[in-house]
């Protein structure tokens, strides 16, 4: 025992001693190896960390786009005129997709494509993003996601629908593939309507299932709804009657505007010809234009009431002042103004009623150019109506310093000045109210709006009385009468401009008026461009359309009658008056 213990003690007491250089070598080797590891770790962790983390994250972390939907456009009563629904775009990532044959067959079925076609499409995309189908309904998209084909992805986007189709197309405009406003109100109010897409950071597992949220994303900002001043029902009625008038008179185009007298809101704004914005592949430019705001025309006699109003305000005439219009023509310098019939002596009131060019020109020449210019300018001519509609034009009202007498005379009956239909409708608020010009709006406003006083109430009412006579049996537009209501208004027939002069047989027929005359509620302006059906006078082309629009409007708006139902008196056909333009 003791010997063993002694031996053990001897062994412990005498350890094997290695040569000094070997220890040093081994230590150095180990230090070098650890040093190498440390350096590598430092390199990966310290200097290259960004790259590596990115690599790692690209396998497990993903950023997902959260689409935001575009707000709806509604009419004044909240009925949708334009709204978006989600659709899905199906595409293959650059890595390509690897479906099993069964998955492939099922996918082709869901996409409603032939297998051969699908195969060909996919083969054509070497290493690029490839859209297989741009628009797939959500229900189908869900089934495609359920197939879990690696490399096949879906992206949500939106499609715009316009339920009223061709009735509202020029007003609303359209959006593009990304649901961004391109024309019309969609463009004008894009900032309000458009949503802002959000983003989610997520962690996914190896099967691309989302495991958890990784850090804060960005919540999507949904688009806001926009209420227009338009009344869907009234819009339909105005469109229906305008379409009938344009087709009946074989005209090139037409427009109709309905304005609420109290609030200045545009209740209906119709254009014809038109197109269906839901079939967005073909958007014919000439049909997409909102003529009532973007096109100008010479208004013709619809401007005469403003000449008369200026003269009444200046005190140079009274409604019963006699004007000599014989012999039915008048020469100023080298130019001659004509009336279609020689009327002899007419009162100022009859100048409007019979629409005498000579009478209007004579009254205009009693005024200094500046006075007349101020009247027209303050009535809103020569400046846009500020509806904010893209492409809205201001029309042309030349500065009075450059007016020659002949120009002042022709401007008295609406030539040598250009307007758009909305401007014209708006200007008539002066006669429909007590002399105030109301601002017009395409957006819903809250209640009555204050106007800008232009003429005295006395003059406004005097002109209104003349306008009521103009639609009477002795006026130029008995066809503008409406059963059960008193109406007031004025016809216009103007030769179209062609090059530097006027076209001989191309006309713009118009009618602007309001009803009920005892307490006006709506202003209706109708413009028919180039009627070729034989008739072209405003009194026979535009006035009947005005009458029908007013009739359905007032009925739809529940406006009480201010005349008996048998109030319409049409003169016998042979005594039908002829309008006096140009």
């Amino acid at each position, binding site marked *: 025992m003791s010997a063993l213990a002694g031996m053990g003690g001897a062994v412990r007491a005498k350890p094997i001693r290695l040569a000094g250089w070997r220890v040093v070598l081994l230590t150095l080797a180990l230090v070098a190896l650890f040093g190498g590891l440390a350096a590598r770790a430092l390199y990966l962790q310290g200097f290259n960390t960004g790259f590596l983390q990115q690599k790692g994250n690209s396998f497990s972390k993903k950023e997902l786009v959260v689409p935001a939907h575009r707000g709806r456009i509604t009419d004044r009563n909240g009925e*949708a005129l334009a709204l978006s629904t989600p659709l899905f775009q199906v595409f293959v990532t650059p890595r390509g997709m690897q479906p099993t044959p069964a998955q492939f067959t099922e996918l082709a079925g869901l996409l409603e494509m032939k297998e051969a076609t699908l195969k060909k499409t996919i083969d054509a995309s070497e290493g690029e993003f490839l859209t297989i189908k741009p628009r797939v309904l959500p229900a189908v998209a869900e089934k495609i996601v359920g197939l879990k084909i690696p490399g096949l992805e879906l992206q949500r986007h939106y499609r715009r629908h316009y339920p009223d189709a061709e009735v509202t197309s020029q007003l609303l405009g359209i959006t593009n593939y990304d649901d961004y406003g391109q024309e019309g109100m969609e463009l004008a109010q894009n900032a309000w309507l458009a949503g802002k897409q959000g983003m989610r950071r997520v962690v996914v597992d190896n099967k691309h299932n989302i495991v958890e*949220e990784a850090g804060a994303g960005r919540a999507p900002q949904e688009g806001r709804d926009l209420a227009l001043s338009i009344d869907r029902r009234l819009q339909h009625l105005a469109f229906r009657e305008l379409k009938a008038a344009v087709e009946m008179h074989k005209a090139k185009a037409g427009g109709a505007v309905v304005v609420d007298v109290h609030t200045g809101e545009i209740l209906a704004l119709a254009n014809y010809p038109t197109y269906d914005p839901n079939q967005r592949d073909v958007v014919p430019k000439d049909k997409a234009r909102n003529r009532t705001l973007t096109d100008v025309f010479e208004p013709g006699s619809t401007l005469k009431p403003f000449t008369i109003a200026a003269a009444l305000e200046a005190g140079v005439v009274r409604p019963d002042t006699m004007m000599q219009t014989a012999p039915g023509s008048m020469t100023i310098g080298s130019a001659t103004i004509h009336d279609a019939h020689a009327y002899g002596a007419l009162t100022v009131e009859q100048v409007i009623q019979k629409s005498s060019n000579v009478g209007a020109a004579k009254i205009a020449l009693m005024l200094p150019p500046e006075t007349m210019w101020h009247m027209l300018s303050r009535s809103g001519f020569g400046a846009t109506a500020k509806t904010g509609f893209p492409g809205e034009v201001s029309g042309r009202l030349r500065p009075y310093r450059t007016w020659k007498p002949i120009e002042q005379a022709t401007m008295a009956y609406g030539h040598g000045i250009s307007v758009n239909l909305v401007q014209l409708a708006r200007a008539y608020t002066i006669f429909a109210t007590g002399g105030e010009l109301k601002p017009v709006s395409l957006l819903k406003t809250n209640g009555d709006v204050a106007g800008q006083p232009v003429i005295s109430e006395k003059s406004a009412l005097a002109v209104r009385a003349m306008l009521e006579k103009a639609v009477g049996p002795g006026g130029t537009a008995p066809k503008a009468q409406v059963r059960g209501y008193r109406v007031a208004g004025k016809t216009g027939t103007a030769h179209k401009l062609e090059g530097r002069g006027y076209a001989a047989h191309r006309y713009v027929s118009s009618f602007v008026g309001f009803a009920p005359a005892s307490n006006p509620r709506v202003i209706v302006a109708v413009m028919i461009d180039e009627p070729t059906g034989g008739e072209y006078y405003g009194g026979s082309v535009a006035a009947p359309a005005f009458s029908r629009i007013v009739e359905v409007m007032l009925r739809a708006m529940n406006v009480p009658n201010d005349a008996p139902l048998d109030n319409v008196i049409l003169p016998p056909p042979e005594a039908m008056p002829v309008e006096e333009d140009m």
Partner: protein
Amino acid sequence: MVRLNLLLLALIVVSSLALVTSQQQARKLYNELQVEQASAKRFEEEIARLQVDQSTWSTPSRIERVARERLGMHAPEASHTRVLGVEASAGGSSR
């Protein structure tokens, strides 16, 4: 000293197990949340689709066509209309 270490070890084991469990729980709940969010999105899509349907079916032009063609309705003629004074209509209907 050894006892304290053992205690700490036990605490570490317990807390890591708890971490695993709660992580698992979180993922499970997150998964449920996602399922619910997906169905919320589906409902939204359905609402949008139904709104399009509703407003397409309720276009005034379609209503008018149905009224005219299927129901045989038409606007009343003058001879079938009676206008009542404001006093007379004050009590009730205005037509």
